[in-house]
């Protein structure tokens, strides 16, 4: 290899590269020249695979031989809302099996929306001697037996986080598998588990791990045990309570309040299932230093919520139910000037009539009062173009804006117009908008706005919107940074897709369900574009048994260098060069 006189020795380059962690930067480095590619690939320690089917385990291992940390994502986002039938895929086992031999020093595995079996967990437990971090976010397929294997074998485990996973909860006994000699726990999140773990085992575990900073308990931990746990971990920074409900008893209250006061480092609270207002004052002493508060399971009402948030002057993130109402959001706007992220969930999502007084006004208030607000998820029942425009003008620094109006296709409730202009204002003013979910009555015009203005947009979610292919065309042709597009129940068909077929290779994935894309168009896309997997999901039977013009139920298109996958269930078909033969 020709070396330029001015080039650095490899060791120096490697040292420099070791300060670069971000994937995009690393990718950029590897493209500079062949020698940099080589050096970089040998010293990359962390890889992120946004779609586990975009690349195969052997390919990853071949390129990056010294990896210590792996992050994989499986199912499409709409799987969260039951739009992806069970058995679709996203199995992690092949990855674990390949890495077990290739990366014996693997330390961290982070998975999202993947199917993880007990076998996979057992393989992790016995293959990686220095295993430290396991994060299973919205995963499924494993039981508490698998967790027992991890607890029993991973001597150096620091983090076990099961956030929002579906676990076959056989019993709480798995926690007792952590040996008495195990003391390295830093973060434990079992909030998704149903069974009771042994409280004494939990207390002993907490007591012997001096570095514990994050503890998210599950609902089964009663309130009267919380004080004991807190007293053993006064260094906690993040706490998720169990059930926050008990008969009001002064001694229970005072020990709880005392325990909370003792946790001087506590910055984040969550849990609060079934919260009763009477016990809320126990956390008042630490409210001023809280930066993150998740009350989205707490059924307390606006008066108590208002009192609570008014004391949290340092709050940066709030997740709450719509019980907070407009009045509580006004208080939030008045007292929490450091707020960055707000999520408001519906307390009765299926009720016909509103059960609380939460309107567009609440969000407008927060947008006015909180200058750092940049991330919003808001469920409500009514919206106006004016409100959206006001929000947009107030918060040009918005980066994530997700609005959900409970009733699909709801218009501006005052003017009865579509909400095109409102969302148009959002994309026009918020130039750094990365993620957008829209709601309400929307025509092709809103997509024109998006295509024209949303140049930094990376992820767009669309439902019950648009009039024609032109809408989809605007987005595909205009949004230069679009990576993920998910669409349901929109009248988008073949034309926009086929005309913008090249765009699809520049994106991570496209999901379309209950739209008008024909089987014929899917076949065409699959055959013509080599590095796309065009997967058709249809539970009615083989799409080949219906006319080609028939729309497919669900379509998932993603770019890949690994070719079509082979672990598809019976209701998924890949369109590729051979599909014409296989599907007849």
């Amino acid at each position, binding site marked *: 290899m020709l070396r330029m006189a001015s080039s650095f020795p490899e060791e120096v380059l490697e040292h420099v590269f070791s300060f670069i962690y971000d994937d995009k930067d690393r990718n950029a480095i590897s493209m500079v020249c062949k020698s940099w590619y080589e050096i970089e690939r040998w010293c990359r320690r962390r890889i992120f695979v946004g779609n586990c089917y975009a690349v195969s385990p052997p390919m990853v291992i071949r390129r990056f031989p010294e990896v210590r940390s792996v992050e994989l994502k499986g199912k499409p986002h709409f799987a969260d809302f*039951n739009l992806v039938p069970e058995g679709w895929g996203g199995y992690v086992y092949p990855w674990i099996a390949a890495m077990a031999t290739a990366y014996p020093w693997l330390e961290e595995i982070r998975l999202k929306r993947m199917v993880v079996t007990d076998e996979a967990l057992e393989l992790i437990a016995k293959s990686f001697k220095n295993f430290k971090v396991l994060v299973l976010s919205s995963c499924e397929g494993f039981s508490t037996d698998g967790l027992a294997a991890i607890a029993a074998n991973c001597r150096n485990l620091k983090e076990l986080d099961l956030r929002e996973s579906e676990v076959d909860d056989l019993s709480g006994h798995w926690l007792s598998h952590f040996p008495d000699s195990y003391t390295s726990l830093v973060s434990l999140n079992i909030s998704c588990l*149903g069974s009771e773990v042994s409280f004494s085992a939990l207390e002993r575990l907490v007591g012997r791990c001096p570095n514990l900073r994050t503890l998210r308990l599950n609902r089964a931990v009663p309130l009267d045990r919380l004080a004991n746990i807190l007293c053993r971990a006064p260094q906690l920074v993040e706490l998720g309570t169990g059930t926050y409900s008990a008969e009001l008893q002064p001694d229970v209250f005072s020990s709880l309040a005392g325990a909370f006061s003792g946790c001087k480092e506590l910055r984040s609270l969550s849990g609060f299932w079934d919260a009763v207002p009477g016990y809320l004052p126990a956390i008042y002493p630490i409210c001023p230093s809280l930066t993150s508060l998740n009350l989205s399971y707490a059924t307390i009402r606006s008066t108590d919520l208002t009192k609570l948030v008014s004391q949290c002057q340092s709050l940066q993130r709030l997740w709450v139910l719509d019980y907070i109402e407009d009045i509580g959001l006004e208080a939030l706007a008045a007292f929490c000037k450091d707020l960055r992220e707000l999520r408001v969930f519906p307390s009765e999502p299926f009720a016909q009539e509103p059960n609380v007084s939460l309107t567009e006004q609440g969000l407008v208030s927060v947008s006015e009062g909180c200058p750092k607000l940049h991330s919003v998820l808001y469920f409500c029942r009514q919206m106006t173009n004016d409100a959206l425009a006001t929000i947009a003008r107030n918060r040009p620094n918005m980066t994530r804006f997700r609005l959900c109006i409970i009733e699909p296709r709801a218009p501006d409730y005052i003017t009865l117009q579509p909400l095109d202009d409102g969302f148009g204002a959002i994309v026009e003013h918020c130039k750094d908008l990365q993620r957008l979910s829209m709601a309400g009555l929307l025509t092709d015009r809103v997509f024109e706005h998006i295509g024209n203005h949303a140049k930094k947009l990376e992820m767009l979610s669309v439902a019950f919107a648009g*009039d024609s292919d032109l809408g989809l065309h605007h987005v595909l042709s205009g949004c230069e940074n679009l990576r993920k597009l998910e669409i349901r*129940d929109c009248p988008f068909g073949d034309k926009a897709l086929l*005309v913008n077929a090249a765009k699809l*290779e520049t994106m991570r994935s496209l999901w379309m369900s209950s739209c008008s894309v*024909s089987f014929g168009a899917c076949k065409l896309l699959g055959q013509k574009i080599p590095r796309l997997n065009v997967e058709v999901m249809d539970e009615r039977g083989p799409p080949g048994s219906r*006319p080609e013009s028939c729309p497919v139920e669900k379509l998932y298109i993603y*770019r890949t260098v690994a070719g079509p996958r082979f672990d598809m269930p*019976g209701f998924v078909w890949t369109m590729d060069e051979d599909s014409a033969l296989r599907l007849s």
Partner: protein
Amino acid sequence: MEGGLGLLGVSGGGCSGASTNESTVSKVEVVVDAEASSYPIEAELELGLGLSIGGGSVGKGKSSVWGECGRILTAKDFPSLVSQPHRGHNNNNNNNNNSNATASACVAVSGTKRAAEPVSHEGESPTSISKLLCGSSQVVGWPPIRAYRINSLVNQAKASRSEEDKSFGEKDKSNDASKKICNGNKTNATGNEKGHLGFVKVNMDGVPIGRKVDLNAHTSYETLAQTLEEMFFRSTPPVSSMGGEKQQSANLSNLLDGLSEFVLTYEDKEGDWMLVGDVPWGMFLSSVKRLRIMRTSEANGLGPRFQDRNGIQISKPV
């Protein structure tokens, strides 16, 4: 809209997508676009028909499209082992959404007794019934809320109501819990000590892929059994790719009455397998962990005894 896209031209539309910072992506031939514009026109017409996504109920729109493109096979297409002349109920285009989730969630009000009897709602569109149960939303995955969050809300609502069967159509708040479920198959991971489960797994003998059903969507055994029948005894999963399952030869009669080739069983909190239907519904709810549709031949000796239609005991009590 034809005109609109025509103006945009063939090459303009296709290549604009390539203008990104991704340096590793190869340029796709513009040839694709030429083919796109010469795509059969009749596709346009067929797509225009029927799919009334822009307005009107999702359910009705879907039915007409599928009517053109192919039938969903129903129970009528398959011979049943025991004739049940009145049982024509299920699948006449009841898939107002493409996922089984809706079928399971949009449960019919049967009002039948446990013994085999004609289903009173025969011929009625499930969409209207689901409206009763699910409020305004009969759409899968809407509003877009994670299942665990919904289950958590349901559990909180349930905590304040009794576990006895309630009649449908009550508009009081405590019934919101049963109306809350239109989201189909996701397991509830927050089944807590009170025993309020949401989604439980259902496996059927001979079927490799299990399903999930939301127990909160039901207030009686009948509706649960019907939902499961719809889930497992339709033929829509491609039979050939599942290794030639004999689903179509399984008959459709009530899983609860012991007549069919299969029986419905459940695993309780102690790990024992019991026949579904013998204890009061509320008690069942608080003890069930998962369901299994078992071949009748294997079900002998399970749980309390059950009787066939003639009242003869055909299994021994445990």
